[in-house]
């Protein structure tokens, strides 16, 4: 053995990344650069992935600080569509707020909200058509709200009551609706990313026109199934949009742990020849523009696109979590990309298509609608009170046909 090297370089040491600030400190995003709205180019959808690597390290933004829509990604939606988008986001936020309270009241066991991330799923939904399929995580209920899925059904699922479409079997918010292009949420992180790719491959095998959208959180990109998805998507050029929602946190873990030394999550696409875009996730217009670009690529059989939505999880991870233990209380206020609802509202006002009054009025209307839905849902029971799925339901649906051993067990259970 040669004995060069080794000693002359001194001892090694382990690098463990840390967020810039912890509780007690002052939130500081000054080291993060956000390109100006309108400053990032819009390549053609059939651009060679190699010729657009830069987009994995930038941020596509449309709304500028003045609330104007600027640059090559702007002007895709009408006033009406934008107003509708605003209503979707406001509805989602109100829905979340009511369900958070319901959870605290013991009406269900668990809840996860979208606070600050409403634009991502609401705007993306607008780029999909009937027949397309999302493989969502637990933080994309906007896909259902914006797709017109009945809120009462969502609530019945959350309450695990007698009208729960999932018969009480699944955790709250783990919705499923084939009809609404919303694949059954698993709860196991990242597993569905590759399933989304498989679904998209199936569409291509069948020479159909449907496309898939797979969803994952920043933290969950570390999971190995993320790799499986990128490998398969890259190899078979699957018609799928691979979405990464980077809300800066994975429970208590800041994004640097999952991301490591690459500057961004979008960068992951580069190693696979998959075009990768980064977008301001708090900018409804930018999200839609990018979603449209990526879905068009898929529809035109040009293959997968990786999209990183840069946003911020303004609330707790879930009702079981308290973020004050691991990040500064005011960090969400300091978040430079602002609030997606406020930004779209300001834009609409700037456009002359909205006003403070209409906003306040809409807020009230939405609250009424959500409360009415909640009332209806609660009439079918909540987790510990009123109507509930039967113990019999527990034995159903393990298989299409109940096998003898389960029949025996159901008998033993006396149901």
């Amino acid at each position: 053995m040669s004995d060069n090297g080794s000693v002359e370089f001194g001892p090694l040491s382990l690098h463990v990344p840390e967020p810039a600030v912890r509780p007690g400190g002052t939130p500081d995003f000054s080291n993060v650069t956000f390109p100006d709205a309108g400053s990032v180019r819009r390549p053609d959808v059939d651009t060679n992935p190699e010729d657009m690597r830069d987009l994995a390290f930038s941020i596509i933004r449309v709304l500028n600080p003045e609330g104007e829509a600027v640059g090559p990604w702007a002007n895709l939606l009408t006033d009406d569509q934008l107003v509708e988008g605003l209503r979707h986001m406001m509805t989602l936020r109100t829905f979340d707020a009511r369900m958070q309270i319901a959870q605290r009241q013991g009406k269900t066991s668990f809840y996860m909200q979208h606070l600050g991330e409403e634009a991502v799923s609401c705007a993306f939904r607008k780029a999909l058509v009937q027949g397309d399929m999302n493989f969502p995580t637990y933080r994309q209920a906007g896909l259902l709200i914006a797709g017109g899925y009945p809120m009462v059904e969502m609530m019945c699922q959350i309450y695990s009551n007698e009208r729960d479409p999932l018969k009480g079997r699944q955790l709250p918010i783990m919705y499923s609706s084939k009809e609404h292009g919303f694949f059954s949420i698993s709860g196991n992180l990242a597993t569905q990313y590759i399933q989304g790719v498989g679904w998209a491959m199936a569409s291509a095998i069948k020479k159909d026109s449907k496309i898939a959208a797979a969803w994952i959180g920043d933290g969950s990109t570390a999971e190995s199934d993320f790799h499986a998805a990128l490998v398969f998507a890259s190899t078979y050029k699957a018609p799928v949009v691979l979405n990464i929602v980077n809300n800066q946190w994975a429970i208590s873990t800041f994004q640097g742990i999952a991301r490591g030394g690459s500057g961004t999550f979008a960068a992951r696409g580069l190693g696979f020849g998959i075009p990768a875009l980064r977008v301001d996730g708090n900018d409804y217009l930018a999200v839609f523009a990018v979603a449209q670009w990526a879905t068009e690529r898929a529809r035109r059989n040009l293959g997968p696109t990786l999209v990183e939505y840069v946003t911020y999880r303004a609330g707790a991870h879930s009702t079981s979590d308290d973020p004050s233990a691991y990040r500064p209380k005011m960090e969400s206020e300091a978040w430079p990309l602002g609030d997606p609802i406020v930004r779209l509202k300001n834009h609409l006002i700037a456009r002359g298509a909205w006003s403070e009054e209409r906003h306040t009025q809409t807020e009230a209307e939405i609250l009424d609608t959500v409360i009415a839905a909640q009332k209806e849902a609660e009439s079918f029971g909540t987790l510990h009170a009123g109507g509930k799925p039967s113990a019999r339901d527990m034995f159903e649906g393990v298989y299409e046909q109940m096998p003898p051993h389960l029949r025996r067990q159901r008998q033993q259970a006396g149901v």
Partner: protein
Amino acid sequence: MPRKTMIESIRDAMDTMMERDENVVVFGEDVGFFGGVFRCTQGLQAKYGKTRCFDAPINEAGIVGAAIGMASYGLKPCVEIQFADYVYPAYDQIVSEAARLRYRSNGDFTCPMVVRMPVGGGIFGGQTHSQSPEALFTHVSGLKVVVPSNPYDAKGLLIAAIEDPDPVIFLEPKRIYNGPFDGHHDRPVTPWSKHDLGEVPDGHYTVPLGKAIKRREGSQLTILTYGTMVYVAEAAAAEHNIDAEIIDLRTLLPLDLETIIESVSKTGRCVVVHEATLTSGFGAELAALVQEHCFYKLEAPVARVAGWDTPYPHAQEWDYFPGPSRVGRALVETLEGL
């Protein structure tokens, strides 16, 4: 009737189903152009095109995960894991996803998928080409688990598995791909072409999932077994002149408990034989069920003969493999009520 090896009959099952149902797709490592390292998919790509039968990247989680997505789309994927020893990277997708999709979505999405894989030792494959992981699947609600022991059943069961609306784990005992193996590794093996169960009808037929079959009627004791061990059990019983009733379970989950109870109630004695390691093997479930349901008929404890609780060794293959002498000893002891 044409005689086929188990490889040919498995290929025939896929061929038959790909012909009948254009939603059937086949993929896995080396299964496309080459036709699989055991050649089970040979010719399918040429016949059905490369979007129906193709090579997959070496990522078992990806293979099964993609298959789940395809199944939920409406296809019927029949995928190959090159060796069962390599299924563990896909274990999460099978256990957490395929097995629970119908249940958790209340039937909104389903997963009609088959995961085929060669199992078992006896080919000097060492720790990574010899395992029998059936018990790791029988513990998982929502899966079906099938182990054929001959070409006729293999084709019929595989067709039934592909047609099944739920995910099926299809375990192929590679030691008997080419002929029944009775555990006497020093003797020549009869090829399937010389065995009745090598008769495989052309076209479509099924062997129903969830039904065991008696390979031999007998009065003295019942042997519960499956796969390669059916032949080892036959040999052991014959060599010891024991009038054993030999039940080939064929499907482990759901289990044909009725046939088991009927037989053990008659014989009063039971020996369970499998190749997988003993502790927490599927034999434990069988022994537990038999003593539960036949307690007052049992004249001796239910015995288990299984692989030892070690990784599958290379050089000591025949010390490890529960061959006819070990099975025979258990038969004799069980008859003596020891």
